[in-house]
């Protein structure tokens, strides 16, 4: 059988970086093809070549055996290729409706909004989504934005669908729903190129896996030739997925006590309702729950980005809810935000600068009123080596990094402040297996030094592995706190849907 889409030794260089170095890819009709590779391996770059956004330096692209050269995304669309980008291509000030219209291929010159609305509404309903068509994109949660992108792709009649890490910002339930659609497309004879770092998803979906490394293809495996261990081996270089023991600890002191907290309600975002919680010194507290149940607000209140409406927060027994010391205390709380692009980084600044974005005023990064460039550089070199960040040539603005590498910069920066409390939302979102593993290890090491961590995640595997306790949130409240060693996925699932056990 001949491949529907064939990529032959494509090379693509950016100033100082060889992102693709002779990569090959064969996608057959009616299959789900997963691209696997560490952060910065060139997955998104390759997909952008297929999308007509990047023009390759050399190499061939064949569809049904015919050579193609894409001069623009328009050519790619014409050839039947559709794509959801890792970093969304949405018009933030426009409504959901207007954004979806951009993907309608037979849009008439005169926009009959009533008629079009009915059509779009039908599509949105068909995918079982509850999104207000008149809401501007900027008011949607990231998960909702992802769905708008998915709708834009799904309404196009494509032969090849490219999804670049679509599940990174979806809840497990939403991912399952998406997989349902993808499997249906496959049965219709369409092909899907899927990118994900989550082993469970890769195993569930893939008919074929291509592994990339440093811009080249290292392996192509058909179903039956791979299992979790084989893939893990290719990804992190060891044959076994490392299992590690967590040392038992006795917790005595509380670092944070939250009592009866209420926080204001934003549209579509659950607030906190009578929320109480204790965080003990040196513990890792996992917070499970479907996104949008107040986790984001909790993180923002704790890190001082949002004032609570009522309730109290105590640190080491002192009331810091409205006290001046709160500022000082917050300074010791690190935050890995949900939306890395808009909250976590200064996109135009270099990686070195982004790594000291919070500590630039402190020693050793400051010398009188000047910056100590030597210290800044040394710090950057160390972090880049420790976290294996692919940072490109010196002075590269951070926005040019791959998604996972941006996430690594944020985590490296937050942990390098040696915080007493770390509030991390989806800390390993978009990280490859090796890097996720490393971040887990760093958090565990910091636990030994008595750092307390609140890990907010939807990845139950991650929570079960890391946490000393898991609190489950539903609609702004805690429905239960469980011990990861004496609980089950089912119990957590029940709590996540609002049942109160105990």
């Amino acid at each position, binding site marked *: 059988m001949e491949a529907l889409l064939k990529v032959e030794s494509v090379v693509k260089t*950016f100033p100082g970086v060889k992102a693709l170095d002779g990569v090959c890819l064969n996608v057959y009709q009616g299959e789900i093809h997963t691209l696997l590779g560490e952060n910065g391996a060139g997955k998104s770059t390759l997909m952008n070549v297929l*999308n007509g*956004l*990047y*023009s390759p330096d050399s190499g061939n692209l064949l569809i049904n055996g015919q050579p193609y050269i894409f001069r*623009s*995304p*328009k050519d790619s*669309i*014409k050839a039947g290729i559709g*794509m959801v*980008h890792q*970093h969304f*291509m*949405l*018009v*933030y*000030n*426009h409504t959901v409706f*207007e*954004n979806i*219209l*951009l*993907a309608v291929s037979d*849009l*008439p*010159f*005169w*926009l009959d*909004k009533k008629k079009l609305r009915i059509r779009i509404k039908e599509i949105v309903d068909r995918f079982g989504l509850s999104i207000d068509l008149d809401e*501007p994109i*900027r008011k949607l949660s990231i998960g909702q934005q992802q769905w708008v992108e998915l709708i834009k792709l799904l309404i196009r009649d494509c032969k090849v669908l490219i999804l670049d890490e679509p599940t990174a910002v979806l809840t497990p339930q939403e991912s399952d729903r998406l997989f349902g659609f993808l499997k249906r497309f496959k049965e219709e004879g369409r092909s899907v190129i899927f990118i994900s770092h989550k082993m469970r998803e890769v195993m569930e979906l893939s008919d074929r896996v291509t592994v990339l490394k440093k811009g080249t293809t290292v392996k192509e495996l058909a179903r039956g030739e791979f299992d979790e261990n084989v893939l893990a081996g290719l990804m992190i270089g060891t044959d076994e997925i490392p299992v590690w023991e967590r040392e038992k600890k006795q917790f005595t002191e509380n670092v944070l006590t939250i009592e009866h907290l209420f926080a204001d309600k934003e549209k579509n975002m659950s607030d906190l309702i009578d929320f109480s919680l204790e965080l003990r010194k040196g513990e890792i507290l996992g917070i499970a729950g479907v996104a949008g149940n107040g986790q984001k607000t909790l993180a923002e209140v704790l890190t001082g980005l949002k004032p609570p409406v009522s309730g109290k927060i105590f640190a080491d027994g002192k009331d810091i809810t409205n006290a001046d010391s709160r500022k000082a205390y917050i300074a010791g709380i690190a935050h890995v935000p949900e939306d890395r692009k808009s909250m976590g980084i200064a*996109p135009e600044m270099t990686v070195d600068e982004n790594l000291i974005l919070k500590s630039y005023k402190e020693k050793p990064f400051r010398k009188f009123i000047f910056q100590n460039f030597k210290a800044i550089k040394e710090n950057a070199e160390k972090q880049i080596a420790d976290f294996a960040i692919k940072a490109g040539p010196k002075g590269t603005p951070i*926005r*040019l990094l791959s998604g996972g590498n941006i996430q690594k910069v944020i985590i490296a920066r937050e942990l390098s402040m040696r915080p007493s409390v770390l509030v991390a939302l989806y800390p390993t979102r978009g990280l490859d297996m090796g890097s996720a593993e490393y971040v887990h290890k760093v958090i565990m090491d910091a636990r030994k030094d008595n750092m307390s961590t609140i890990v907010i995640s939807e990845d139950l595997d991650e929570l079960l592995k890391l946490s000393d306790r898991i609190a489950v949130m539903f609609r702004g409240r805690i429905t239960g706190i469980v011990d990861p060693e004496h609980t089950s996925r089912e119990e957590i699932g029940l709590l996540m849907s609002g049942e109160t056990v105990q």
Partner: protein
Amino acid sequence: MIEILLFATIKAGTPLLFATLGAILMERSGVINLGVEGLMLVGALTGFAAAHTADSLFIGVIAAFFAAMAAGAIHGFICVYLRGNQIVSGLSLTMFGIGITSLFGRSFVGLTIAGFSKVEIPVLSKIPYIGQAIFNQDVLVYFSIILVAAMHIFLYRTKTGLYLRSVGENPGAADTSGINVGLYRMSAVLVGSGLAGIGGAYLSLAYTPFWVENMTAGRGWIAVALVIFAQWNSTRAMAGAYLFGGINAVQLRMQAMGTSLSPHLLMMLPYLFTIAVLVMATLRLEKGSTPEPEALGTAYDREDRK
């Protein structure tokens, strides 16, 4: 009295309205044009020269449109295809316009033509108080009013308008939807520049039917400011242009009546007012939202990451 003032208001506001509409069109596509002043001057001189030579006002307006379009094409090419700095390019365009019109305009100083005359619209012009002021104007005034509505319909009711707005907001999103970003931006700059040229021609063909050096007297800059006041919206642009025109009319009237206020102070009024309104307009904005096209002023490079 009110009728006369209203009449003068509309007349003074019309050149601004054309220029503002032109600038809105360009900025909606993501290109800032600080060359409006220069484009208006080019339009004013070419319009006057063509009308004088061909003895046809219509040809004058058409010539103004295309001359300004040609001047704007330079800006468009630099910003869209060479990805140059839009601010610098726009400023040079203004200086270019001032220079070239004073050079070629010398021989036209002192000449006169019969400017646009009033065209009375039956029935409507009989409405008490406002009838004569609004419905007994020249054709360019009517054209500008139609243009306001047409622009609104274009931007919000047509596919091309939606695409244009998307290009100005997020060219990456537009590009990946198969929209030709460069073509949209270039076309918007061309047509927008032409409209600014007509704004200039209104001055030399209707407002005061003669040519003098630098006759736009900063109106191009007011237009650039009015775009912000109008929040990139054509109907608000009309309100803004007439507001400025109105204060200008009152100010002229006061000078004519001989108040004791310094004429310099009076002449400052329209500008001061525009600034004040601008500040208030920005204060009233909903938190987190901005009517400004998100990609305004930035060049689009497909291979760059945002």
